[in-house]
């Protein structure tokens, strides 16, 4: 254990685990409760279009990814407001269009391109200090946003039309939430990898909502669970030399399935 901490990549990975857990616990709870799991995936893949465009224009691909994912968030929020289309359909379409744009721009870019896809993947073992500061920034932003607007977010998530009649800035809150998800996903996926982000957004909050009846409590539990998954996964992967991201996800997945079983055989649990 002490040996493990003597490696700076392990120290960074453990700190990254803590920071990821905070964002994932909070944003994940909102994502699961407002049924936006695929918004996160959609935003991430739309970002691919931005990477392609950035290559074409010769600017930093991360800039392109962030720009595209923010635009996607706004568009997604706006179009849905305007047309009351089903979310899953809209996301599916954005997802596909984003990828297609990325591929076509990459196509039009002369010369050799470093594998575009690699901009969507990362590893918790290769987290740098810069990454850690950036993650801290995203964490503060997310925390601030949710603390400041907790009651309004709850109201919008639960009953939009009432929130609207109360003249809450429903559209703004929704778009801000999607943008926050987009930012978190794009930033974190560079650091820890896309599939890990989606798993960590979904699983802890899903387990929480099985057993708890309050959004706030679910957020707390989700943070703790993410922390357990990332730390546990890191240690396991270290001792058995497995890919860290995949190990973390496997632990999360097995926990979720166990939670389902426990919940089913539990007489004191909420519906």
């Amino acid at each position: 254990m002490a040996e493990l901490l003597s490696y700076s990549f392990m120290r960074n990975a453990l700190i990254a685990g803590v920071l990821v857990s905070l964002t994932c616990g909070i944003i994940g709870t909102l994502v699961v409760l407002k049924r936006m799991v695929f918004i996160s995936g959609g935003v991430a893949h739309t970002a691919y279009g931005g990477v392609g465009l950035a290559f074409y224009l010769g600017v930093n691909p991360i800039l392109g990814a962030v720009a595209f994912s923010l635009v996607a968030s706004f568009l997604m929020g706006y179009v849905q407001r305007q047309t009351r289309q089903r979310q899953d359909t809209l996301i599916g379409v954005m997802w596909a269009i984003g990828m297609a744009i990325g591929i076509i721009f990459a196509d039009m870019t002369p010369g050799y391109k470093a594998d575009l896809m690699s901009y969507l993947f990362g590893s918790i073992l290769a987290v740098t200090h810069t990454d850690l500061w950036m993650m801290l920034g995203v964490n503060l932003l997310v925390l601030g946003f949710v603390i400041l607007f907790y009651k309004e977010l709850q109201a919008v998530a639960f009953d939009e039309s009432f929130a609207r009649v109360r003249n809450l800035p429903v559209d703004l809150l929704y778009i801000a939430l999607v943008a926050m998800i987009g930012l978190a996903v794009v930033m974190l996926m560079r650091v820890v990898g896309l599939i890990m982000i989606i798993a960590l957004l979904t699983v802890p909050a899903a387990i929480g909502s099985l057993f708890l009846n309050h959004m706030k409590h679910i957020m707390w539990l989700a943070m703790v669970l993410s922390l357990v998954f990332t730390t546990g996964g890191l240690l396991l992967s270290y001792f058995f030399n497995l890919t860290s991201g995949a190990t973390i996800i496997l632990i999360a997945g097995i926990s979720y399935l166990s939670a389902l079983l426990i919940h089913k055989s539990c007489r004191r649990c909420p519906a």
Partner: protein
Amino acid sequence: MNDIFKNSQPLVEIKNLYAGYQYEVVLEDINLTIEQDDFIGLIGPNGGGKTTLLRVLLGLLQPKSGSITVMGETPEKGRRRIGYVPQFAEYDAEFPISVRDVVRMGRLSSQRLFKPYSTEDDRVVDERLDWVGMLEYQDRAIRELSGGQRQRVYIARALTTNPTLLVLDEPTISVDIEARTQIYELLHKINQDGVTIFLVTHDLNVISSYVKTIGCLNRKLHYHGEKQITDEMLQSTYGCPVDLIAHGLPHRVLAEHKGGN
């Protein structure tokens, strides 16, 4: 209870209003004035446009033509003083939220975006929960309530906004008789305290017992301002023989209970 708006101006003025959906015009040439302290009961057949009228009133649906003012302002602005209980709750039935948190949402507004709930808020929430008889359930999750219990919670939430005008779209659906009577008694009391009430209902008993003015809506607003249901009113609104409509509801009852309790 609420004296922000104690001049003689009507609360709501609707003039020559046409509204509807892309497929059809549902409301035709509606003229309606809601005066202060009124208790309007709106009846009408299914598909008559009652819910549509409320949606226009709440600024959730844009009229096709005509004008509407709510407390002298546009519906989008004026609605902040309207309390609203929707016909079919549009909430997510599985959402993990407590009864208390739902009711407390009534205290939210765009003015206080950055402020936490106050003890005054909590007092109001307690009171309203007590009014609808759900105080003991305040920590229960909404997803563990029965249909009628949920409906009461929604009424409490609307009351928590301290509305000048309270709009209810068939609020006692799946509410049992005891609670129903309690709720109407409550509306009656609130109304006497100065809250104007606009109630959509199919329950003629209620109309006859509590309501001050009656409107009958079937695409057009057929009657408005009468204090008593007459056979002709029902006939022209519903377009069918009255004895069928009034079956099980002797006309005597209507007269007997008018305006009283």
